[in-house]
């Protein structure tokens, strides 16, 4: 993955707002209806064949971003380009092709599978909507897909409730793979599953990616998982990407105080490395009333005047490594300040 290769997907200045119902107090005060800024001016790219991890806590916009990437949300502003073409301006035939080539797998296999459709019906629907195979070849393809996700062949005649959570997630993966996509967007793929079953599904994803040359966008809150499977990671906070970096550089030396806190807050699997001081102070500010300047300034131990006045933009911290922090712009001493946190 070299920087000069054109990205498969590029996100430019993407914003997504959700309007809330107007309140009576708002009407009386003559204010506009409140809006949640789920994504604000997000720029990133997804490169062919890589796994891009998107990590952050609830309300950071990671799921909204995932849904924008597959076209389930229409951006409020900005563009998403797939192979250079704005997905909002595709002709119907191109849009159908895009819908096939970029597939999503959802967090909750209980609610994303129709309880009244057997696995065969689920897979047949996906195959016939995109006219993937002549009708006669569909049964063979279903057997092949079930083998690919390591479900027994007799699973085809069963219904979602007959499967465990891990198996249901495999059905979700089989459905996505049925249409031979190039990109999988997985939103909290394993967070509803038990740890021992999570590992099975993660292993399957790694093997399928290698075998089918898939590009994966892996959205999750679990840093250990993101670190395990990603080539690059974007850290999000309150609708902004605050840091994006190759995975090794991010975990070795995070350059944004929020990334640093997030990494330190994840409990280590080593009892000897236990700490007694909380990694981050305070809580998320109200998303309807975001702070001026840097969004992290209410919790940042290093914030200074400029952080309250001006919102920092992503800027370079190393090869392929960007962070949005005023401190880091001063160079090494600031990096040391973040490291010393």
């Amino acid at each position, binding site marked *: 993955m070299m920087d000069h290769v054109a990205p498969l997907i590029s996100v430019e200045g993407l914003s997504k707002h959700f309007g809330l119902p107007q309140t009576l107090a708002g009407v009386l005060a003559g204010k506009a209806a409140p809006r949640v800024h789920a994504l604000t001016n997000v720029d990133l790219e997804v490169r062919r064949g890589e796994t891009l991890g998107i990590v952050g806590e609830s309300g950071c916009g990671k799921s909204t971003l995932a849904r924008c990437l597959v076209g389930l949300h229409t951006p409020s502003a900005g563009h998403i380009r797939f192979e250079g073409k704005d997905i909002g301006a595709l002709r119907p035939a191109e849009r159908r092709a895009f819908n096939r080539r970029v597939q999503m797998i959802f967090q909750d296999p209980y609610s994303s599978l129709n309880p009244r459709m057997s696995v065969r019906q689920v897979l047949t629907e996906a195959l016939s909507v995109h006219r993937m195979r002549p009708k006669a070849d569909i049964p063979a393809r279903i057997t092949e897909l079930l083998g690919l996700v390591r479900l027994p062949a007799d699973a085809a005649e069963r219904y979602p409730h007959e499967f465990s959570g891990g198996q249901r997630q495999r059905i979700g993966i089989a459905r996505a793979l049925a249409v031979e996509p190039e990109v999988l967007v997985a939103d909290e793929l394993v967070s509803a599953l*038990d740890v021992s079953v999570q590992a099975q599904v993660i292993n399957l994803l*790694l093997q399928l990616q290698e075998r089918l040359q898939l590009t994966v966008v892996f959205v999750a809150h679990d840093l250990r998982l993101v670190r395990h499977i990603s080539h690059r990671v974007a850290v999000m906070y309150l609708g902004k990407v605050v840091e994006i970096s190759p995975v090794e550089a991010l975990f070795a030396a995070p350059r944004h105080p929020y990334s640093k806190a997030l990494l330190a807050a994840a409990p280590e699997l080593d009892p000897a490395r236990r700490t007694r001081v909380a990694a981050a102070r305070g809580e998320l500010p109200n998303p309807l009333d975001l702070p001026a300047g840097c969004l992290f300034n209410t919790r940042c131990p290093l914030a200074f005047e400029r952080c309250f006045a001006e919102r920092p933009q992503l800027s370079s911290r190393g090869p392929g490594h960007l962070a949005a922090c005023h401190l880091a712009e001063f160079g090494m001493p600031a990096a040391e300040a973040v490291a010393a946190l």
Partner: protein
Amino acid sequence: MKPASDRGGDLKVWGLRTTFATSRGVAVAVDEVNLDVAPGEVVGLVGESGSGKSVTLRSIVRLIREPGKVSGHVEWQGRDLLTMPDDDLRKVRGAEIAMIFQEPMTALNPVLPVRLQIEENLQAHTTLDSRARRARALELMNIVGIPAAESRLDQYPHQFSGGMRQRVMIAIALASSPRLLLADEPTTALDVTIQDQILKLLLNLRDQFGMSVLFVTHDLGVVAATCDRMAVMYGGRIVETGTVAEVFAEPHHPYTRGLLGSVPRIGAERTILTSIEGAPPSLTALPAGCAFHPRCAFATDHCREARPSLEAFAPGREVACFHHREVAAMAEAA
């Protein structure tokens, strides 16, 4: 079976069994559970969904409703909680033994300001008068780290964030100065930075008030970060116990080993994880012999027929596995 009395435990549980009559037969949710919690100790009860860890916690304070049945012994201050009269139990529960839950929004009363909910517990379990209760409620809010406590006392649970609600729950639990806190996945619904804050708060409170904590969680990271000792549950039984350091360093049960291997490790990125094949068993149809044998790489015919009991193999270490020496040796070789 006798409790292990060498640690002089505050809470001693032995032979605990909890069953539920269901339309598909009797589900044995917890069986043959022996567990001690010493004063000031944090003990982690860890397992996956359906392993019986939460039911164990609730059984200890008789929070199991019909058609659930609890038998065995839960000794607290020399008395058996499972047989004591309801009136006596009420003086222990919520007082000497407090509990916090996974989802504070369902545990808190949505139509009462938090002040009343804290004072309610003070009224039930202390001799403070109303003026002293008000002062104590404020003090408790400060102890658990709720900013602007004075003004927030009159707010309702929905006006608090998830992390702050859990702090309110902890304040209510602390109101009676408990000697033992039962914590049922208290940070599972929280974001990681907030989870970190709550875990550290609990550890500080343990030091400050000298209370013991029985901590139920599915997250091995949380166990590593907070507990002194741990018990691993599978299929309703404890399969391994020991200090957290020992169990993490040298797991003796194949299930513990599999669980630890399922979690991604630093330095092994994009490699295949050692997963445990299959899924946890249904409690109405537990496999014969060792409940883990269908998923176990070490299983032999013996494991399919006989159920291994939890036995000590070193001081403070117990395991329920016929092949635990091989398991430990293999872990060392790897």
